[in-house]
């Protein structure tokens, strides 16, 4: 099929490249843009490993066709750290021990970011609900919830300091 011009903003940078419209956003990110931090687990919208933010909303990149993401503001895990400094959510995941094999982690962190961007003081139940589309086979979610709680507290403090 004839390629179309995929124009979007990925991690704050404009992207413009020819893409076969049958391809998934996941493939464009991983293969064309080399952003392999986004993982493919199931490839059918069940595990959340491929979670990215599309205009701030978490989506499964394996279920989004490239044309659907055209014109959008896309954030992958590579865009979460700012100028080489880890995002407070990433710091919190490290500190709380919320990463074991790490396969679910990029998706978890983006799901958490989407939550904290709109609900800076979530309850544990809200955290669990926000990551309920992200399966983790290693942890018991205890430290993941703890990490998000910790990140929320830190972000609130940073906010207060500004």
């Amino acid at each position: 099929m004839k390629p179309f011009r995929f124009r979007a903003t990925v991690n704050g940078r404009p992207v413009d490249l020819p893409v076969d419209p049958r391809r998934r956003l996941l493939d464009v990110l991983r293969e064309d843009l080399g952003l392999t931090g986004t993982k493919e687990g199931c490839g059918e919208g069940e595990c959340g490993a491929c979670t990215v933010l599309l205009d701030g909303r978490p989506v499964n990149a394996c279920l989004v066709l490239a044309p659907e993401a055209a014109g959008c503001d896309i954030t992958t895990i590579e865009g979460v750290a700012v100028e080489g400094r880890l995002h407070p959510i990433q710091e919190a995941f490290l500190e709380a021990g919320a990463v074991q094999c790490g396969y679910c982690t990029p998706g978890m962190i983006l799901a958490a970011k989407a939550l904290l961007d709109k609900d800076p003081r979530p309850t544990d139940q809200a955290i669990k609900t926000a990551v309920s589309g992200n399966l983790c086979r290693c942890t018991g979610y205890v430290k993941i919830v703890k990490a998000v709680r910790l990140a929320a507290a830190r972000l609130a403090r940073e906010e207060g300091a500004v």
Partner: protein
Amino acid sequence: MKKRGIGVGCMWYGIGNTGAPNPAGAFLDFLEDGTVLVLTGCADIGQGSSTALAQIAAGELGVNIEDILVVAGDTGVSPDAGATSASRQTYISGNAVLLAARQAKEVLLQEAAGVLGAAASELGLGGGYVWRGGERTPVTVKDILARCRQKGKLTLGSGWFNPLTTGLDEAGQGVPYATYSYATQVAEVEVDTETGKVSVLRLAAAHDVGRAVNPQAVEGQIEGGCLMGIGYALLEEVKVDRGRVGNPRYAEYILPMSLDAPEIHAIIVEDPEPTGPYGAKGVGEPALIPTAAAIANAVADALGVRFYDLPVTPEKILAALTAEGDHKSPDE
């Protein structure tokens, strides 16, 4: 109606198979700038072995963990460490790394002994310094490394560990493991007698790990094991239909997810194992072994009916309650 119950599950589990050869090796190079390179065949699949092995090397050589570089599971350069299975790597590769570190340390201590006019056996390493009889000397590890290099001495070590292979007799009996891990878990559940749904409210999981090299990672293993155990107890079932897996996707093969995760209290019990590195044993599999038993016992406690077939699904619970009800008068 919602009924609550509490159940207990206990287990013991062999660590360090001795029925068949079970070795692991490690190489270590204490470089001049203070970096320690550790080569191990031990594949870290998320359990945190690379971190634990780095801690063991750092502990023995008295350096910071940041100075340890672990190259793990690269068959091109690393010695064999066997599989990451059987909850064996902390115990077996941990010992291999400890022995490799001791060998390199011995070279340093011999050199330091010459400098301090002491016997190597009185000396130790810690915080980047050479210690003598429990007191810090002004001599740094880097001084000693530099002196070694001036003489053309390398500070290398290699180690391997194999729990004594005893083999088993024709009946498959003997001494199958070098050591054992022990655990007890307690589950509190709530069963909805109308829908048959079981909610695990709380789990307490006490595990004797010998010595927790990295307590946070051990907790992570225990919590993860508990959640997997909930899946085993209540949800996960491979349906095989004429040789094919009938439910090969997460929408059909249900894993516990974040909303199913109960409060989990991981309790680390440390009864050091004399043959383990710093007393450590293993926790990987033990973490999930008693969970299903604890949950099934809690369900039995709540309902007064026992289940002998996992997973204990709502269908099985409703069928059992109906059968139970058939034996009772309606107003009982």
